[in-house]
Every structure is written in structure tokens, then in C-alpha cells.
């Protein structure tokens, strides 16, 4: 068997590149600034010499050609969606449309400032208002705020709305129910919001069961926070019943919308009984992940929560769009200014290009791809839950582990074969999970190549399990010593003594 047949991974020339500091030489410059057209001021005269730094000690001095080469070389060590298949579960690594990158750089957007008078920035404001509406419609909600910066930030915002809602009713609740399969940000956001986190176990089928919720539910519970489809890629089929249980006890239902890519146009959280949801525009709405942000985590809510949404709210008046600060019940501000506007431009462009016609198709094909991968691999890889998958599928290493090959090894071998690894070891309810989310922008052939690689990896785990330790070999760096990094943290460059 040639493990590498059909797989895209191979090696090519790349370059070692030092730290930018190590490229520095005194007197080099990478900048180009005009001379002053006003009298030059002596900083020491303004501030007093002791406040003024001689120079920024040890800051680099590099020319532009060297700096360009530096960052080009760094980029070549990276793997992105434009490099290949990136089935990182829960992260929806779909294609980032290029026109959106271009349009988000229109000077009219780039040079708009949050403190300019509203009449000067009606374009930015109209875009915000329109995007709020579209997101509310997709979620089946009544109102949206775009202020949060990312998913976790949206969660925190949503939970704060819930807290404000209860307090406004004189009902100071203390707990949030969170299923065991939840993403780490859910308990973390709950705790940050001052809630006690109560874990609810999911059932054998990977779903949350009404009785489990009922057992945990009481009048101290502010909300049940669930991801739907959940992090196992399974739709919470009992959601309506669960919603009734929660609502009956005065609780609210929070949807971590990280997985909205499975549902867009197919079903709406608002119709299922959810009161609040956060989006991750950098997942569902195709905005770039940027190597870890910037994202955007809009929150859509039912009208009961609307009064509490962050300040200010965008409103349409006769004279145009305005920011309304007169919202006495608002939780206040959750981020400076109006959120990651540049990300919103991309999401808006995406939704306008997809439009009514194609948004649903995206969800359908995302689910198609995941189920296809599932059906092709389920004989070789252990599927911890038989329940139907939505846009992602979770396997484990159970079949391979006995041969000495674990999830980490499978992931690293995939890298070597030219694929990004799935999300691994999450969700925690599954032992050694491999969470695969192809997304709709991958073709059948792309899935087929990945399936083939996974089959070959299984085959190799039978034939030559010891070899796995050595991988990846083709990447710019081989396995990195994480223990060393954590034990003796070196978190920044320092000049040689």
C-alpha cells in the first residue's frame, strides 16, 4: 500500500526565517514618512526629559524588502482554507469569498469613524441595520446586536441579557444549565457572568433528554444553554419539549449558534423555543478566521430580551439611521463602539450574494458532506453515537487505539498527507474525539480524498502502528514539544544579555 497515493501532501522548498529582531541592524528603515510641515517640537521640552524615551530599546530596524520577505516566508509555513481541506469541527472553515475581502476595503468604509455624526456615516449604519435584520430572520428572532467581537463574547452578552431580564422581574437567579458536551466557552461565559454552572448529562443518543433537564431545572436556573445541533453534530430533537420545561420554570433558552451552518434556511432556533442565540460570523457567514480572529458574535433575541440589548441601538428615523442611547434597561456596552465593523461588511456581502436562493443550499450541502464522510468512514472508525449527523460527525480512535494509534497520531498523519486535522479531543463527552466538519464549499472529490486518506491511515494503523510517532515529517516543523513550552515559558524575545 502506498499511503500517499491520491493525497495532496508532498514537500517543496520553504525557507528558514529568523525572528524579526534577528533581522535588525542599526540604521535600517522600513518606513517612509513626510517631513513635518509645521515647526518640529522637541519632545523633551514638552514632556520633560525623564518621560521621553531615547528610543524604543531593542525595537527592530529592518528595510521593507526584508520585512516583506520575512512575512511571506512565515506565511508559507501556514495552512489555510485556500491551501486545502480544513475539516476543523465546530469551526466551519468554509471558503472566504475574495470579493468580500475586496469590498471590505472600500475607502468609504475604512475611513468611517464611530464618533462621526450619524448623518456622515449613513452607509455604515445602513449596513449594520440591514445585517441585524437578516440575522434575526435567519434565527427566527426579533432583534439583533452586532456589538460582540466573537462567539464567546456573544455568549457573555446573551447571558447578561438573561440576567438583566430576570433581575428586571425581580428574580435573581443563580444557575445556568450546560450540557456536558458544551464548548468550554459556555461554562466560562456563564461563570464570567456570575452564574453557577450546572452540568446536564446528555443521553446515550447524544441528545439532551427532557427528563435530565427537568431534573436539573428549578427556579434558580436562569437559562439552559445549549448548542444546536450540538457539538456531536446531532440535532437536539427534544428541543421543543425541553424549551417547555425550561420556560415553565421561568428559565430562558440560550442557543450557542456556532453550528448555525447546519440550520440556515432549514429551521430556525426562534421557532424551536430559543430566546437568544449568538452567531459566529467568522464561521457561518464566511468571514475569514484570520489565524484566530477578528470574529464577530452577533446576538439575536426574542422581543422579551430586546430592551436589554447593548447600547446604543441602531434605529431608523425619518432623517435616517441614528444611534439610540435611551434604553434604560440595556445591559450597557459590551465592547467599544459598534463591534468589528469590517467583519460585518464581509458577512453582509456574503448574505447578499447568497441571498434567499442559496443560504439554505449552503446548510444542505454542509450536511450532505458530513453525512457522506460519515457513511464512508463509519466501518473503520468508531462512531460513538449512531444518531444522525448534521453538518459534522464525531468519530473516536477506539478502533485504532488498541493498535497503538491514538487520535493525536491520526491528526498528525493527516497533516503529513496534506489535510488539516479535524478538531481533536473535543467534545469532552467523547473519549479522544475526531470531529470532522467538511463545510459546503468542499467538493465531493475533496471529501473523497480525505476519506481515502483516513482509510489509509486506518490501514497503516494495522500494518505499521509504530511509525505514527514520527509524523508529521513533511511539515516545516515536526511535532512540537508542548511540555517544554509550558514548563519553561519563553513568551517573548529578549535581547542577548
Amino acid at each position, binding site marked *: 500500500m502506498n499511503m500517499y497515493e491520491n493525497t495532496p501532501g508532498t514537500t517543496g522548498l520553504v525557507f528558514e526565517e529568523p525572528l524579526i529582531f534577528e533581522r535588525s541592524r542599526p540604521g535600517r528603515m522600513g518606513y517612509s514618512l513626510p517631513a513635518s510641515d509645521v515647526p518640529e517640537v522637541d519632545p523633551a521640552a514638552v514632556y520633560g526629559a525623564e518621560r521621553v*524615551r531615547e528610543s524604543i530599546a531593542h*525595537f527592530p530596524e529592518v528595510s521593507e524588502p526584508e520585512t516583506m520577505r520575512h512575512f511571506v516566508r512565515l506565511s508559507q509555513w501556514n495552512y489555510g482554507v485556500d491551501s486545502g481541506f480544513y475539516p*476543523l469541527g465546530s469551526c466551519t472553515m468554509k471558503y472566504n469569498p475574495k470579493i468580500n475581502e475586496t469590498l471590505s476595503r472600500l475607502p468609504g468604509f475604512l475611513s468611517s469613524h464611530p464618533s462621526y455624526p450619524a448623518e456622515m456615516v449613513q452607509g*455604515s449604519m445602513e449596513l449594520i441595520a440591514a445585517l441585524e435584520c437578516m440575522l434575526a430572520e435567519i434565527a427566527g428572532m426579533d432583534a439583533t446586536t452586532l456589538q460582540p467581537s466573537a462567539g464567546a463574547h456573544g455568549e457573555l452578552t446573551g447571558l447578561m441579557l438573561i440576567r438583566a431580564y430576570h433581575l428586571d422581574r425581580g428574580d435573581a437567579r443563580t444557575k445556568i444549565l450546560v450540557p456536558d458536551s458544551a464548548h468550554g466557552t459556555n461554562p466560562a461565559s456563564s461563570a464570567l457572568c456570575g452564574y453557577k454552572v450546572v452540568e446536564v448529562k446528555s443521553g446515550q443518543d447524544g441528545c439532551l433528554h427532557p427528563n435530565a433537564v427537568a431534573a436539573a431545572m428549578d427556579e434558580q436556573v436562569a437559562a439552559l444553554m445549549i448548542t444546536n445541533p450540538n457539538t456531536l453534530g446531532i440535532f437536539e430533537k427534544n428541543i421543543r419539549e425541553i424549551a417547555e420545561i425550561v420556560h415553565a420554570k421561568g428559565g430562558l433558552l440560550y442557543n450557542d449558534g456556532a453550528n448555525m451552518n447546519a440550520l440556515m434556511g432549514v429551521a430556525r432556533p426562534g421557532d424551536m423555543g430559543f430566546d437568544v442565540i449568538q452567531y459566529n460570523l467568522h464561521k457561518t457567514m464566511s468571514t475569514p478566521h484570520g489565524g484566530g480572529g477578528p470574529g464577530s458574535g452577533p446576538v439575536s433575541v426574542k422581543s422579551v430580551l430586546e430592551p436589554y440589548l447593548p447600547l446604543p441601538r441602531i434605529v431608523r428615523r425619518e432623517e435616517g439611521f441614528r444611534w439610540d442611547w435611551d434604553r434604560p434597561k440595556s445591559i450597557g456596552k459590551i465592547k467599544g463602539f459598534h463591534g468589528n465593523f469590517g467583519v460585518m461588511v464581509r458577512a453582509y456581502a456574503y448574505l447578499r450574494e447568497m441571498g434567499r436562493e442559496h443560504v439554505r443550499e449552503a446548510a444542505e450541502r454542509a450536511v450532505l458532506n458530513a453525512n457522506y464522510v460519515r457513511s464512508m468512514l463509519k466501518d473503520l472508525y468508531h462512531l460513538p453515537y449512531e444518531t444522525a449527523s448534521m453538518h459534522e460527525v464525531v468519530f473516536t480512535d477506539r478502533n485504532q487505539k488498541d493498535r497503538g494509534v491514538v487520535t493525536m497520531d491520526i491528526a498528525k498523519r493527516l497533516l503529513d498527507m496534506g489535510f488539516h486535522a479535524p478538531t481533536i479531543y473535543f467534545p469532552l463527552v467523547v473519549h479522544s474525539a475526531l470531529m470532522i466538519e467538511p463545510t459546503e464549499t468542499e467538493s465531493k472529490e475533496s471529501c473523497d480524498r480525505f476519506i481515502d486518506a483516513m482509510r489509509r491511515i486506518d490501514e497503516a494503523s494495522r500494518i505499521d502502528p509504530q511509525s505514527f510517532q514520527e509524523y508529521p515529517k513533511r511539515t516545516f516543523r515536526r511535532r512540537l514539544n508542548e511540555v517544554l513550552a*509550558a514548563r519553561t515559558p519563553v513568551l517573548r524575545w529578549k535581547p542577548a544579555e
Partner: protein
Amino acid sequence: MRYLPHTEDDIRLMLDQIGVGSISDLFGSIPASLRLDRPLDLPPALSEPELIRELGRLADANRQNEYSRFVGAGIYDHFAPAMVDHILLRSEFYTAYTPYQPEVSQGTLQAIFEYQSLISLLMEMEITNASMYDGATGCAEAALMARRIGRKRKRVLIARSVHPEFRRVTATYLANDPDDLVDVDVDAHGRVDPADLESKLDEQTACLIVGHPNYFGVLEDLDALAGSVHDAKALFVVTFSEPLAFGLLHGPGRSGADIVAGEGQSFLGAMNYGGPSLGIFSTKDKYVRQMPGRVCGMTEDADGRRGFVLTLSTREQHIRREKATSNICTNQGLCALSATVFLSLMGKQGLRRLAALNLSKAEYLKARIRELSGYALEHDGPTFNEFVIRCERKPAADIHRALYEKKILAGVKLKDDYPEFGSHLLVNVTETHGREDIDRLVRALDEA
């Protein structure tokens, strides 16, 4: 649809393999009553040329380019070399995610490491995280971090001269303990009022948060403040929204700041209606385990070669869940990269030069204002590229409106955030302003 590669044949073959008859069968696990039985009420799909026209229409509906603008107040109009965007457009950077697989993410990781190093040097702080959402949330997280470190000490003192957005967001984050957030007054110089501070510092105090330069553009006396705060065994938190000031001024670390949190947008060039932003967050080595957010560290690979990984993640939500130091997950990665490229290009000389240009232009405007009758500089202390003008002729709002009609945006009216500054304008001048722009502003003020 150009982003969806499936052909009809593909779909049929895949459905056959899965063993279902149609796409909608794939959604069988969604109860029928919950499925949407109508198309979404969204506008119809646009082709690329139509999309270009639509977004062009919106961008053009922003009219700021018709005006000469002197607005900063937390978001600054700065030059960014074209090269920066050429790097940001590298697919390998912007289409990757968090570097969970370090073997194929060394580019992102080394850049983060460089970012952490550059910011630490600039702030004269020991360590810096991989980024927060923005200055305001960073300020809030600094308050929370100080409270964790302070254990029993829960009170957060915050100067009224800290950026109003930072104060609002901090208040939101501390909404469960509103009494723990206490304002400290500003004196006539626009700085923290030492007497008020002394009266509030006590054994409950977790930290004092100040701005530097503060919202009025005024520099705080960091050394003195640090002394008082440390005497009270509290932490000293310095925030900022104009990091370019540190091109000339010593970093807050030099005065003993324990945490530095602020907004790095100035290093991104574009204002973008206020975001994407860049939350800069630095602290001392000894507090690293209480620090929120990701951090990248140096290590070795299996062949002993230098490499980088995300590290100290036991602080973080994906490991520690409800006990994490913060809930932050996705941060502002590409913005940190953008700042890294910017700072690398500017370098030791350029950043200083750029800062000096800002100072010179602002001082020129100050000098011209001093010559005008009917206007005064509200504060006597040194500023960087922003300061407060007191309008003695008419209410600030009238002056602001009069200049607006002349296509000049004369800063922001302070009154909304500071009722006591009813006739004050906060004006900002950067390297993007030519002398004629400034002269025109002065002339218009004189004529108003």
C-alpha cells in the same frame, strides 16, 4: 452558485452512498414541525457586479471624505504602509484559524510571538498576550484580573478620565457588583485628582485604572500614581487608546504598571467605523497565570529546531471551563499580525518619527488656539495628539455646527460624556493633517 461545488451528479451519488433519497431526508432528525416551510425572507441573490454596486453605494453613502476631520477620541486616523495589507492578503494567514496544529501554523505562531515581544518592548512590560477583543474589553478584563489577584480586594477604582467606552464596558462586566466600581475624580489639570484617589485607596482596593494619555489627551503622572497605588498594595492598571504616544513616551511598565490594557487600532491604519480593533494586554511575569487570553511560547520540535506553540492553556476555557481566567477564545489574530507588520516596518526610528510628527502637529494647533480670542486650552499639562478646547464665545455645540457647515468636523463635543464640560471640544491632530488643514480649522474657529 459559485461557492458551492456540488454538481447534480455529485449530490445523487452522495445521497445514494448515504442511503437516503433526498437532501431533505438528511434533516430527518429535525422534527417536521420545526422545519421552516418557506424560503427565508432575505433579499434575492446578487451577482458579483451587482454586489460591487450595492456595497459601493453604501460606502459612498459615508460622506466623511467631504470633510476635514479632527476626531480621535479613541479611534485615530493614521497612515499604514501599503505593504501591511499585502501581507494581510496572504491566504495562508487570513484563511487559517487558531494555531491548534502548530506543525502547520508556524507562520501565525511566530508572528504572534513577535507581536508579544514588540508590544512588551513598547510598553516596557514583561509579557503580552496574543490579543484581546479591544481596549475596552481589555480594560474590563484587567479589572477582573486585578480582582482575582487581589483575592479579597474587590474594589476597582477607575479614573473618570479613562476612555468612556472603557468605563462603560468595565461597568457592564462588573454589573454583578456595581458598588465595586468606583470613579476617581479628575483635577483641573485633567489628571487623576490625588486627593480623591488617596481618599478612596484602601484595603478593599484591587486596583486603580487610569488612562495615559487619558481621554482628554492629557498625560497622567504615572510614577506618582504607581507609588500611591502600590503603597496601598493594590495593582496599578494603565490603559490607553493611543499607543502611538509610546513612540515618544516611556512605556507604562517603566513607572511600575502591573497591567497595561488598551486599544491598538492606531497600529492598524484603518478606522473601519471602530472595528476590527486590537486589544493590547500586557502584564508582569508573576501574574501570567492570572492573565486572560492566549499566549504563544517558544519551544522545540522533534528535531530540536526552534518552533512555537500556544501555551499555558490551563488558564483557558477549553481546558479550565468555568474556572478559566476568561471566556475569550477567538481573539483579534489578524489585527495582531497587522500591528506586527506595521511595527516591524516603522521600527525603532520610524515609530518615534511618526509620534514626533503627531506631537508637532498637535502643538502647532495648540499654539494657534492660544492665539485665538474666545478659545482656550482647558488643561495645562502636556498632551500628545489630542486635547480639549474650551469655547468661551458660544456653546461648543454651536461652534461645532458652524464648522460642520464649512465641512470641518471640529472634534467631539465632550458634554455627552462629561456634563461638566459643556463648552468643550476634544480635538485630535495626526500626521494625516496638513498644515493648511489645521490653519483652515483655526480660521474657521476664529470666524465662528
